């Protein structure tokens, strides 16, 4: 969340309540009672289904819990950091970590560039039908990733697929994308970019519309070319927006799961298996302790990457 969204106009945070000083403390008491009453369902559900499991996951990752312990989750043995050692020395987990890094490092910049290009195009060039294009580009974002992955399996099919048909018009003989160790991962990245750029585009559009036209006019008077105006005037002002979109896109991409599960089952030869998917597989094998250690490694990486992004992109 950008800092701007958290700011409230001054004066709105002033204590609410009638001005008479004698009744104030009674009013505050009543407010406290009402506040906790209103917060109670949320707090109860939150403790049970979010806070509890976050801590439970951490605890579980230091035990040898398996599926057979499902009914007796407290009768398991502590094994220290064994699960973490096992995960990090597991060939497939390393491969999954590499694939996830590949997906994020290529996918996030690609998505943001596509999103920014679309936002600039719509903001500066497309005046008629702007909202039509905006809505259309946003459509894939709200559709189920599972359905998208099913559709793209057919788009990417080797002979009868849409993509290779289009490529054949210009004389390119497209590969069997999802069965190729080289092309499977880039295919998933392009699909993810296609699905997600609309989300970042909407945020970039809001950012662009917040930049006063006088900024560009000043650049124009100084004789800056349109590229220079974009690079040295607009882009620096979009810094907070870029930070925000790179954090949210990065967090999403670090967890990619449905795409390989539906399209490649992690193959060929584990070339598209992700950390989330491998964690789910270990859960399926009944290795609960090991699965939670893997999910916690991912959790820590997400936190660290987010922190680094904030450091790199924060205002100087």
């Amino acid at each position: 969340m950008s800092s701007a969204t958290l700011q409230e106009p001054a004066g709105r945070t002033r204590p609410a309540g009638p001005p008479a000083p004698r009744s104030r403390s009674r009013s505050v008491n009543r407010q406290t009672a009402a506040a906790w009453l209103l917060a109670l369902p949320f707090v109860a559900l939150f403790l049970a289904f979010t806070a509890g499991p976050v801590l439970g996951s951490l605890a579980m990752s230091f035990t040898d819990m398996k599926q057979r312990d499902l009914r007796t989750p407290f009768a398991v043995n502590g094994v220290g950091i064994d699960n973490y050692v096992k995960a990090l020395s597991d060939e497939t987990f390393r491969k999954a970590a590499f694939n996830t890094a590949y997906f994020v490092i290529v996918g996030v910049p690609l998505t943001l560039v596509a999103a920014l290009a679309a936002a600039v195009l719509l903001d500066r060039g497309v005046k008629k039908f702007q909202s039509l294009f905006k809505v259309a580009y946003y459509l894939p974002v709200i559709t189920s990733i599972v359905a998208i992955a099913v559709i793209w399996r057919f788009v990417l099919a080797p002979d009868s697929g849409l993509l290779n048909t289009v490529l054949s018009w210009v004389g390119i003989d497209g590969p069997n994308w999802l069965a190729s160790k080289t092309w499977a991962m880039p295919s998933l990245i392009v699909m993810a970019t296609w699905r997600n750029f609309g989300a970042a585009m909407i945020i970039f559009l809001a950012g662009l519309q917040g930049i006063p036209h006088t900024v560009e006019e000043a650049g124009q008077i100084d004789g800056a070319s349109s590229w220079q105006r974009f690079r040295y005037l607009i882009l620096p002002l979009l810094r907070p927006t870029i930070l925000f979109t790179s954090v949210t896109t990065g967090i999403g991409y670090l967890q990619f799961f449905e795409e390989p599960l539906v399209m490649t089952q992690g193959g060929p030869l584990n070339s598209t298996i992700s950390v989330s998917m491998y964690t789910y597989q270990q859960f399926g094998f009944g290795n609960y302790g090991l699965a939670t250690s893997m999910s916690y490694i991912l959790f820590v990486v997400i936190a660290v990457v987010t922190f680094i992004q904030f450091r790199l992109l924060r205002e100087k």
Partner: protein
Amino acid sequence: MRRTWWIYLIAVLGLIAVAAPFAWMFLGSFKTQGELLRVPPTWLPEAPTNQNYADLLSKANFPQYFLNSAIVAIAVTAGNLIFCSMVGYSLAKLRFRGRNALFVLVLATLMIPGVVTFVPLFVLVTNAGLANSYPGLILPFLVSPFGVFLMRQFFAGLPDDLMDAGRVDGTSELGIFARIMLPLTKPALATLGILTFLGSWNNFLWPLVIAQTEEMYTLPVALALYSTGQNAQNYGLLMAGAVVVVVPVLVIFLVFQRHVTRGIAITGLK
């Protein structure tokens, strides 16, 4: 002005790139298996058939999956509308000890991935006897930090004077919330409702874990299992299944799209 035409050309090419896979799905769902496998592929179905949709009813139990998705999404949406507005109001407008701690907690958990919590959650829900049941599918999603944040931001933008007026009139604190303030948040409730419904409709990992028998599958779970199981080569069935998953959200989004983009403006989050 001379530049305009190529800008529109790029925009339209982008539109085609976005729309083409959806069109491919829609057209494909009316083709026969033989036509789907043909090289080079056909564009429009040569002999349009509704066999694939008939198969969704006879070979697979899609009406049940549709019903499950709808029940879960409606319940989750109702829960979020009620509980998130309650706590959002108290965070924005009431003074109480622990308010800041509660808000920090909400913010800190905005980004917790489902993959971190699903194993202990599965153990918890199973031991509560709720595995493979509607409550098991619904309860963990009845509130969301995102919804609390959205409602809190919206309530914070409403003037305090209305509450003060209610207090002078002797209205109780809960009455001020329910009768004076809540009706003013209809736009935010619409946004939260639609985003929650879409999120629940598309939710995958948790239903996959907790729906263990076929009659409890939601649409995405059913579609994913069909696409990787024995029906993996039944292309027409999968295309028709994808249509059933996608079309309701496309319709809802196109009707209410202003509320969705406004939600992004209120919170800065999607």
